[in-house]
């Protein structure tokens, strides 16, 4: 049973930020609510004030320009991102990830900003956004700040968002030339969260790897970069024994939990296998990329 709350429905960003600063000690922000409402119904989250930003149209957009890259407003739904021809063309890994996120019903109502702020280590967008080098624009009544998404996650379901702050925008730079990206999760039902997930992004210089980014989902209390594995790739040519070592490094550096879905050891094994696969896939895409 959901505990009673006062319902506030701002329609402008400024109004939302003013409400947040007035009620910061006892409020929660809801947008699509696809995660939050479950927690509220289970009594895990209670609040005196619920600030509903679903109608803040200023934050519902997908924009792109060659210099600034891609910017996505926080209240943009997953389905909008999935179906955006702009994103399908320029950031295919992002639209592909969205098609694997939960079900159509959830993607129709749930938002990218809500997912990112929920801070679930098994969330699909975070690893992909990490490998794309995304930054987050956060705001409160006093102003805005920008931080890389990997600094945003501080612990299990915890983020660097201050109590009077709102996520406003997700910013994704234009990928370097000859960059390829890939994402896949392992699960039993395709609409489930990943038992683990791996995203990789590879930039090539000739036949050698110029730089690499690898991010893991549900393999630690938060989504995380596998930095040692990334460093092993720099300056190297694609080879099976290299992939083996890279997968091993990622598996050693993650901190998976054991739960009803998989043991910690099995998760490490999966991380190693999927890291190999995603690095190879991203590499092959980079070879084809302009």
């Amino acid at each position, binding site marked *: 049973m*959901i*505990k*009673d*709350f*006062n*319902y506030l*429905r701002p329609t402008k960003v400024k109004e939302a930020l003013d409400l947040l600063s007035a009620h910061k000690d006892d409020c929660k922000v*809801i947008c699509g*609510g*696809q995660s939050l*409402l*479950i927690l509220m*119904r289970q009594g895990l989250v209670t609040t005196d004030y*619920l600030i*509903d930003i*679903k109608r803040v149209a200023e934050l519902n957009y997908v924009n792109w320009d060659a210099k600034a890259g891609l910017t996505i407003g926080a209240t943009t739904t997953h*389905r909008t991102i999935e179906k955006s021809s702009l994103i399908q063309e320029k950031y295919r890994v992002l639209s592909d990830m969205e*098609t694997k996120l*939960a*079900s*159509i*019903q*959830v993607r*129709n*109502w749930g938002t990218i900003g809500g997912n990112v702020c929920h801070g679930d280590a098994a969330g699909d967008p975070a690893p992909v956004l990490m490998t794309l080098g995304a930054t987050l624009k956060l705001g409160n009544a006093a102003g805005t700040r920008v931080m890389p998404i990997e600094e945003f996650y501080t612990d299990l379901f915890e983020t660097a968002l201050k109590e009077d702050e709102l996520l406003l925008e997700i910013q994704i730079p234009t990928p370097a030339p000859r960059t390829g990206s890939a994402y896949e999760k392992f699960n039993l039902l*395709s*609409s489930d969260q990943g038992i683990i997930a791996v995203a990789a992004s590879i930039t090539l210089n000739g036949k050698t790897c110029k730089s690499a980014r690898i991010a893991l989902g549900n393999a630690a209390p938060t989504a995380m970069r596998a930095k040692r594995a990334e460093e092993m790739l720099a300056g190297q040519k694609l080879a099976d024994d290299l992939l083996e070592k890279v997968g091993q490094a990622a598996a050693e550096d993650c901190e998976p939990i054991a739960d009803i879905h998989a043991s910690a050891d099995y998760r490490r094994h999966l991380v190693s296998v999927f890291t190999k696969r995603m690095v190879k896939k991203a590499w092959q895409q980079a070879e084809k990329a302009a």
Partner: protein
Amino acid sequence: MKKELLRLTVNDVEYEVYINPKRLLVEVIRDELGFTGTKRACDTVSCGCCTVIIEGMAVKSCSVLAMQVDGLRVKTVEGLEVNGKLDPIQKGFLDEGAFQCGFCTSGMLMSARALLDENPNPTKEEMKDGIEGNLCRCTGYNSIIRAMTRVANGQYKEEQA
């Protein structure tokens, strides 16, 4: 708790209700407005039994605050039949026997309808994706896909005209 005024359109009829803002859409549809065709089952955004169509989009009504549909148009399974004529997707389900116990059916119909509205000629894979968020423990889904295929093939077009 202060009650809030909610204005919404369900199956082309406008309603005004005063509700506690914590009420979920499925509760308002069933308990306030009496459209009990929409089923409530898992309550955790898993099973899809409570699926309704909001402004053309299939959404699980157990995971939406009713206040969020203020001013919007909602269609429930009761709204599929028009002037005594079943919707083609309902005919398809009947002709293929695409149910046994029937509990998932109203949600399944709404997901199938929303998919066909959005994409009138879906591939089999697209049909599967369209009902991915709806669980059925009886049919094995094949009869549901066949029902959707009938509609996509335009089988009931003349009867609707």
